[in-house]
């Protein structure tokens, strides 16, 4: 399988897989969705009861309009920047044996007094300063006049196989590479196909022939095939060449995700080879 990078932005990528097949493309797709490790908040400790403010001489209640469970769940969904070279899975951590240490966990504190909206940007990493959350403007909860929130949240590595909060990609999908062939001998230049194409990729060239402007935009909907009265146009999807696209949520950049994904896929293939060799 050859991978040609057609577009590689920080949070978005488009790849052309040639000399491939749908099975292989789907294997890569599933690895990108479910097997890339990333950080997400897993444990949340709430301060219960009153929260005092000595400077203001005022007492706040730790109750909020949302249940603590919902807040904990919302915290879990927030993307946290991940450096895969620096972190171990907590259960596999050799430094601490799963107790939690700077090599496997990141601790955040959240301390806010109402009335206000609590945003993801209010999560302050304890100790490390460069691990602030990706998006500062995710609303977590709103607090009214004498409500306050005091939380410690612990993030750790995981994969989306266990929980979707560790899923760092979205919209991962592939399609067959489209092929449009136009038989200029049959074509009667009615231009119906140009009008009906939902992605507007058919146009008329200077010498009056129908040409395709951006073949990769084609959805293989075959509207043009159906509308052509003389049957001059044919649309096919190639099974040996595919277009794969994905987005990331900012925990990892698109390039790192692809490298890590291919690495994991290679490991999986190797383990299958080993298992087959053991049978013989």
């Amino acid at each position: 399988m050859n991978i040609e990078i057609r577009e590689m932005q920080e949070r978005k990528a488009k790849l052309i897989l040639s000399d491939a097949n749908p099975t292989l493309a789907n294997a890569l797709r599933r690895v990108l969705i479910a097997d890339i490790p990333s950080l997400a908040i897993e444990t949340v400790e709430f301060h219960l009861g009153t929260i005092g403010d000595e400077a203001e001489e005022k007492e706040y209640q730790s109750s909020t309009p949302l249940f603590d469970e919902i807040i904990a769940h919302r915290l879990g969904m927030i993307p946290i920047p991940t450096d895969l070279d620096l972190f171990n899975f907590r259960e596999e951590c050799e430094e601490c044996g799963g107790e939690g240490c700077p090599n496997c966990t990141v601790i955040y504190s959240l301390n806010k007094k109402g009335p206000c909206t609590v945003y993801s940007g209010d999560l302050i990493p304890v100790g490390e300063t460069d691990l602030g959350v990706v998006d500062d403007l995710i609303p977590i909860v709103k607090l009214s006049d004498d409500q306050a929130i005091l939380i410690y949240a612990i993030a750790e590595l995981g994969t989306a196989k266990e929980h979707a909060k560790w899923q760092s990609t979205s919209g991962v999908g592939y399609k067959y590479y489209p092929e449009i062939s136009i038989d200029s001998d049959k074509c009667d230049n009615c231009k119906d196909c140009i009008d009906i194409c939902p992605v507007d990729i058919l146009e008329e060239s200077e010498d009056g022939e129908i040409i395709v402007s951006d073949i990769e935009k084609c959805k293989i909907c075959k509207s043009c095939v159906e509308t052509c009265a003389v049957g001059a146009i044919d649309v096919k999807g190639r099974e040996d060449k595919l277009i794969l696209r994905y987005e990331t949520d900012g925990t990892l950049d698109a390039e790192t995700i692809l490298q890590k994904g291919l690495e994991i896929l290679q490991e999986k293939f190797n383990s299958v080879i080993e298992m087959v060799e053991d049978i013989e």
Partner: protein
Amino acid sequence: MIIPIRCFTCGKVISNIYEVYQSRVERGEEPKEVLDDLDIERYCCRRMLLAHQDLIDELMEY
């Protein structure tokens, strides 16, 4: 209630643009234009914002 952090279907984070979306729609822009401009491409994510009813302010009174 309060805007869900991610799209239910694909998992894209959509809550970070909710307040921008809301204020722009209130100022009279078409939701379609705002969503296109904010790069919300798929219809699963677009419905998260389009169909959302923010009820937390009403709930806060109790």
